[in-house]
């Protein structure tokens, strides 16, 4: 019987208390009359099949009843329902959208089997925690360590692919075949790379012309080969080498990042650049053996690297290994940025819930009589709570559906916040995980804003509800709860305002940073030289000379030059500087960024020449090797001497300083960069440093001139100089610099939108609370006026209440906001967590919001007619 009683708990309580006893005695009677143990057993087995569907049916009947009731009552006054749906839609939409990106970037496992065992390895050296590995160090690490099941090296490279029609530029990963074994993602078609496919990849496998294997990505397969199934075995030219397509990867395979579309094999050629322990170019991914923790792997790598430091004390000085989980390959800033957004969206939802709780509390009081009648008619409290919760949940579900629609509008914007360093797609979508989250948030929201009002409205008014004057005093319990909700709302919105204010200030601060070069009217065009055809320095010089002389004579072009990389686009290319007599005990590593340039580069970018001269076309490999250095370079190494004429070792040779130019920000706007060294493009040996061969054509244009005809003319000039040279990545330097702050801009906009929304909702909250309080106190106000209180007294009385709430909320909010700001400090770009301007502005906005919210109710109170107020009693 106990079993049967337990089963009956599936029914709503009201039903159980009505029929439970009888059902039990019926069941007992049947058991008693059953003909034998088998028949009894059959009865017991049958019972769940009788109870379960019927219990669900009873629930369903109640739900339909409540929904009918609800739709009738909301049809009479749709304002509340519409407001509630809108507010929940905003809250749930914001949360769902932000969750989808947070989930993709921070939470869900990477799309590789056993992804928790995947790690990334970096060299840790003075000044750099994550430096690429040199090939010999990599090979030693691999040989000497036992924590890893497999280890594979790779690097990114852009290559020209000629397969179908015009040459295209393809982001390529040059990888060891083992990489595919580590990632363990099977190809969609064909095979992945295997040992023995080596021998085709740059840099410069001299003499090798054997067709090598390449694997292409889904996007390239669809885009360039139209998804054709006979693509396997097709021969294409990759940077002028014949290569054979052996496999196609599935659409969700992105490694090392979503821009990569082609994988070719990495070869360790016995050449200088692959034997040099200072040539740091390899990224390394490895899979820990099962049972080996990341700390054990770190400990082992520490021993390995100490051994290598002893063996190569000069090149590996203080060089250790950084071992981090592949999942954590994301910057602190990106993490904080998402955390801040997620926090802000949750705040909006909390405020939305508080506000809706308000509305429902208010409505619950209006409905007291209805609910009292129902109680008198025998509806239990549980039944009323159920009805009210059904109502709030239904509103939340409707809001949730609208919220999903809103989220789908926000997603493309948020997708841009996914850091480019993660091997996951940049598009986010409403997949089952996100939908499950939305469902959870919707339920929590429905219960969250419904439960308090439901409990409050359903309890304890058997008698009181009938008394017309049955109201709370100002400090009554209900009123206190509502006041607490308003204080909470104000506090959260003030905290959000502070956060968004600081983020905006940080953004403005960064936008105001001088990058060291002029961004306006500079156009950059990438001309990806094929490394095979342009491996000779003089061959390149010919091309530059021809293109530049024609480009410079184009109308509207003031100057033109070639450079290795655009600032902020390529942040690497950092080399060690050696200076005779320089002490080793430096607190900053002696490094500088290396760029080869043609003459006029500094004029084109507006980088000021401080002393000496520009590089010249006459600076060739036969003339003394020279360089132009940045001010910080000169200051660091020759603080009290004229830098012109000084000598230093850099970029595989000894160079003499002939000019000093202004500093620029090479890495990004927010970080001071290493000092810069510019080398004449002709002063490099054939086939050396091919990755640095200038391929960015930069053009300074007449201000405000139409770019399209100039670009067309430049295209023609380049095509005439080399018909096989593709033109990719046309952009202005303004785009480049603006791109630096794009994620911040999106984040600041979103957080500000969330903050505006929440402050607006708080204003509505204050308005709602005071309107309610004022109307409940009509009689009291009427009496006061009858006894001679002036309008200004009444106004003061109402405003005082609002001010009290605002002050309480603000002080709580400032404390919260300051704590949030401290947590965000790493992305505030130097704006202090206690930034006075932000706090002052926030206080002003909060005050204005309070005033706006309380003015209408206060004025209404002033206009009460005392006689009518008292008569209404």
């Amino acid at each position, binding site marked *: 019987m106990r079993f049967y009683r337990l089963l009956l708990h599936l029914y709503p309580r009201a039903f159980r208390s009505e029929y439970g006893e009888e*059902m039990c005695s019926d069941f007992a009677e049947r058991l008693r009359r059953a003909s034998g143990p088998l028949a009894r057993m059959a009865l017991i087995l049958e019972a769940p099949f009788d109870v379960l*569907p019927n219990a669900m049916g009873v629930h369903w*009947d109640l739900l339909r009843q409540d929904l009918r009731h609800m739709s009738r009552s909301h049809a009479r006054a749709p304002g509340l329902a519409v407001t509630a749906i809108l507010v929940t839609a905003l809250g749930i939409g914001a949360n769902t959208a932000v969750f989808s990106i947070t989930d993709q970037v921070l939470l869900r496992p990477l799309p590789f089997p056993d992804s928790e065992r995947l790690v990334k390895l970096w060299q840790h050296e003075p000044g750099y925690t994550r430096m690429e590995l040199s090939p010999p160090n990599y090979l030693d690490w691999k040989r000497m360590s036992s924590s890893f099941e497999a280890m594979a090296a790779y690097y990114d490279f852009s290559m020209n692919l000629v397969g179908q029609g015009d040459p295209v530029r393809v982001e390529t990963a040059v990888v060891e075949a083992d990489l595919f074994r580590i990632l363990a993602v099977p190809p969609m078609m064909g095979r992945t790379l295997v040992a023995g496919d080596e021998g085709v990849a740059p840099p410069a496998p001299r003499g090798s012309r054997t067709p090598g294997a390449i694997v292409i990505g889904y996007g390239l397969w669809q885009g360039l080969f139209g998804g054709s199934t006979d693509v396997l075995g097709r021969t294409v030219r990759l940077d002028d080498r014949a290569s054979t397509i052996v496999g196609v990867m599935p659409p969700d395979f992105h490694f090392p990042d979503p821009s990569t579309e082609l994988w070719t094999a990495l070869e360790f050629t016995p050449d200088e650049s692959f034997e040099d322990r200072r040539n740091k170019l390899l990224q390394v991914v490895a899979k820990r053996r099962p049972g080996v923790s990341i700390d054990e792997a770190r400990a082992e790598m520490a021993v390995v690297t100490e051994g290598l430091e002893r063996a190569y004390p000069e090149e590996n000085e203080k060089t250790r290994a950084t071992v981090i989980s592949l999942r954590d390959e994301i910057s602190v800033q990106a993490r904080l940025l998402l955390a801040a957004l997620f926090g802000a969206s949750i705040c909006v939802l909390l405020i939305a819930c508080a506000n809706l709780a308000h509305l429902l509390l208010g409505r619950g009081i209006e409905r007291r009589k209805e609910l009292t009648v129902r109680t008198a008619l025998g509806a239990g409290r549980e039944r009323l709570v159920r009805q009210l919760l059904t109502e709030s949940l239904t509103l939340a579900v409707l809001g949730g559906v609208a919220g999903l629609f809103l989220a789908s509008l926000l997603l493309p914007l948020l997708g841009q916040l996914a850091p480019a360093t993660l091997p996951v797609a940049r598009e986010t979508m409403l997949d089952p995980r996100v939908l499950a989250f939305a469902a959870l948030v919707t339920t929590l929201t429905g219960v969250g804003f419904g439960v308090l009002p439901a409990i409050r409205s359903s309890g304890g008014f058997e008698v009181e509800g009938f008394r017309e004057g049955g109201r709370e005093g100002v400090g009554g319990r209900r009123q206190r709860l509502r006041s607490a909700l308003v204080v909470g709302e104000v506090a959260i919105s003030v905290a959000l305002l502070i956060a968004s204010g600081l983020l905006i200030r940080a953004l403005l601060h960064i936008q105001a940073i001088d990058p060291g070069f002029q961004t306006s009217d500079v156009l950059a065009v990438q001309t990806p030289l094929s490394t095979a055809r342009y491996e000779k320095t003089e061959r390149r010089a010919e091309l530059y000379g021809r293109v530049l002389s024609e480009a410079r004579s184009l109308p509207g072009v003031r100057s033109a030059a070639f450079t290795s990389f655009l600032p902020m686009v390529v942040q690497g290319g950092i080399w060690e500087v050696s200076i005779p007599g320089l002490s080793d005990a430096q607190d900053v590593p002696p490094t500088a960024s290396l760029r080869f340039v043609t003459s006029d580069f500094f004029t084109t970018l507006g980088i000021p020449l401080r002393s000496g001269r520009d590089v010249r076309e006459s600076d060739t490999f036969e003339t003394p090797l020279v360089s132009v250095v940045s001010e910080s370079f000169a200051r660091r190494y020759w603080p009290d001497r004229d830098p012109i004429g000084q000598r230093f070792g850099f970029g595989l040779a000894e160079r003499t300083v002939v000019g000093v130019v202004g500093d620029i920000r090479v890495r990004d706007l927010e970080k001071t960069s290493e000092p810069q060294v510019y080398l004449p493009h002709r002063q490099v040996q054939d086939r050396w440093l091919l990755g640095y061969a200038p391929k960015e054509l930069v053009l300074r244009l007449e201000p405000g001139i139409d770019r399209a005809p100039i670009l067309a003319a430049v295209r023609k000039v380049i095509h005439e100089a080399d018909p096989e040279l593709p033109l990719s990545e046309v952009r202005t330097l303004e785009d480049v610099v603006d791109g630096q702050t794009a994620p911040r801009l999106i984040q600041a906009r979103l957080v500000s939108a969330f903050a505006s929304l929440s402050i607006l909702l708080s204003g509505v909250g204050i308005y709602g609370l005071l309107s309610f309080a004022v109307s409940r106190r009509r009689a009291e106000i009427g009496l006061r006026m009858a006894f001679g209180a002036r309008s200004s007294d009444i106004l003061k009385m109402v405003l005082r209440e609002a001010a009290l709430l605002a002050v309480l909320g603000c002080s709580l909010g400032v404390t919260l906001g300051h704590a949030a700001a401290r947590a965000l400090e790493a992305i505030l770009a130097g704006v202090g967590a206690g930034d006075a301007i932000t706090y002052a502005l926030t206080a002003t906005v909060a005050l204005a919001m309070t005033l706006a919210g309380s003015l209408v109710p206060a004025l209404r109170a002033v206009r009460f007619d005392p006689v009518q107020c008292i008569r209404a009693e």
Partner: protein
Amino acid sequence: MVHDPADIDALLPLPEATFHILLALADSDRHGYAIIQDVSDRTSGEVTLGAGTLYRSIQRMLEQGLIVETRDRPAPELDDERRRYYRITPFGAAVAGAESRRLARLVRLARARGFSPKTA
């Protein structure tokens, strides 16, 4: 007592359990277990109402006004004090009548097409 035909039609066709309960209450007031027994006896055990089905139907029938809970108790020696007794209302009787007419019409239609109950 005249009932609005529209009220009656809105309830048709009746769920099988509801119809059986109305039939069981046609001749006397009964409590739940007696209804189960009556249905089972009349159908020679072919229809056995589970308690779950019975009380869900009763709850709905009370709301629809097909039956009422009666305060008249049977003779003390027959009364089971723990139990509640249900009685068919005039409206319930009208609905049961309408349902049986509906079923009869259906059977006539089937016969006209050559489906004899004996061969079915």
